[in-house]
């Protein structure tokens, strides 16, 4: 049985995400931006749930909302933002940026219109309970090497962050 109100929830979360995204890039105060981003991330986790990807949704909540965003808030607290709030918010190439983004959007629209029919219309039946197992099998099987590299990347990131942020080592 398909979930009861998929369209309703899809449009709800999509609206939340779009509004959140607009707020992220327009707010003066970086903390408000971060809050909008958190709301966006949580809405996106819900969309993952609708796509029957519960493990990714959980990882999104734990890592993104609970980890990365805390880091962001932490840093925003450390750097005083009062001054940057009084300054001009957008840089001088904002017009160029918007034109470039619009062009990119046009490209997206063109591609989607053209390739609309290549996506199969049927919805695959989903055995909800084995999602985590499937992810785990792939992660520790086929993508084992990538997994190790990812962990190495994290190690490098930790060391890099410490080197950058610490005053005296």
């Amino acid at each position: 049985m398909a979930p009861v109100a998929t369209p309703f929830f899809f449009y709800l979360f999509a609206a939340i995400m779009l509004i959140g995204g607009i707020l992220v890039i327009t707010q003066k105060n970086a903390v408000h931006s971060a809050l909008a981003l958190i709301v966006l991330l949580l809405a996106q986790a819900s969309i993952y749930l609708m796509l029957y990807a519960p493990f990714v949704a959980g990882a999104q909540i734990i890592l993104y909302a609970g980890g990365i965003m805390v880091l962001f808030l932490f840093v925003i607290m450390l750097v005083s933002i009062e001054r940057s709030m009084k300054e001009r918010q957008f840089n001088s190439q904002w017009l160029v940026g918007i034109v470039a983004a619009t062009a990119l959007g046009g490209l997206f629209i063109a591609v989607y219109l053209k390739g609309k029919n290549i996506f199969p219309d049927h919805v695959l039946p989903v055995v909800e309970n084995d999602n985590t197992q499937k992810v785990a099998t792939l992660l520790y099987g086929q993508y084992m090497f990538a997994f190790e590299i990812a962990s190495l990347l994290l190690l490098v990131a930790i060391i890099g962050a410490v080197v950058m942020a610490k005053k005296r080592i």
Partner: protein
Amino acid sequence: MTDPNTTLSPLELESHDKTYLDANELVINMGPQHPATHGVLRVILRLDGEKVLGLECVIGYLHRGVEKIGEHRTYTMFNPYVDRMDYVAAVSNGLGYCETVEKLLNVEAPPRAQHVRVILTELNRIASHQLWLGTHALDIGAITPLFYTFRDREEILKIYEKYCGARLTTHAFRIGGLQYETYTGFEKEVTNFLNFFRPKIDEYEELLTTNRIWVERTKNVGTISAEDCIALGVTGPVLRASGVKWDIRKAQPYANYKNLDFEIPVGENGDTYDRYLVRMAEMRQSVHIIQQAVEALPEGPIMAKVPKVMKPAAGEIYHSIEAPKGELGYFIVSDGSTQPYRLRVRPPSFVNLQALDVMCRGQLVADVIAVIGTLDIVLGEVDR
């Protein structure tokens, strides 16, 4: 005290450092309304994250001009005022003042009075250390010892109340001896208290001495060397915990301490844990002293012959006693009239508080709280 920066005050340091901008630097103002500053002490902390770069004490919020009042009261009239300085060790304050004036007048209190004085002051030492222990543990986060110590301190206050009618600012002694004879059963009650209290010290120690968190919080925190202590004039348990065997009860015996057998507990490292151990040992020694004094309590008069109107000969005198917090000294200049020409108190809390900056440099914010607690200051005495 080797860092050259220590010669600058924290506020000077701030401008000194302006060239090097630091995202983490923070100047915070602790007190005068703060739960852990033991009254109205205000400490300006300059922090790097959690590390203390320097601090400055701002005092005087409880200043009442006790010393100036002394110049306008007769010697007898001033006696109750001294209780209001270190209000948790009021009896010791009274003893110091009475002995100083007695020395000025060349009178000596009779033996019975001296014994009772020793008993009451040592009880007061226990009470003061109990209050210190409770609040110090509360500052470090252990809330239960506070209630244990207050429960037991109550017994001491009951003895005071029965003896002189007051519990906190007792005004127990008079110049020349005692005003009141002890009440019936005084010796027995004091002995009962001692028997009741001995296991209680073990109870406090059981909660804290071997408690891992307590040891981690206090070991190597607020360390001060013996040289620094002497240079800053620090006295009392703080000095003794740094390894200096200096106790006025032994060094310049007053009352009848020379007849009593007791030891001076000494620490080694001069850290907060040692100060804790020294004070705990002092409580045990006080129990020992009281026991001896009660057993040897002689019969006899309680008041020496003192003129009704005291007019000591012109001259000056300094006399000090070992108060629970350190050396409590009184300096009195007499011009031959009924009032002191000049009166000055050397309060142990005030002098010990100077060590705060030395003890806290390089430590963390949480340690500042522990160090303020371990210095055992009473703001009434600091500000006078």
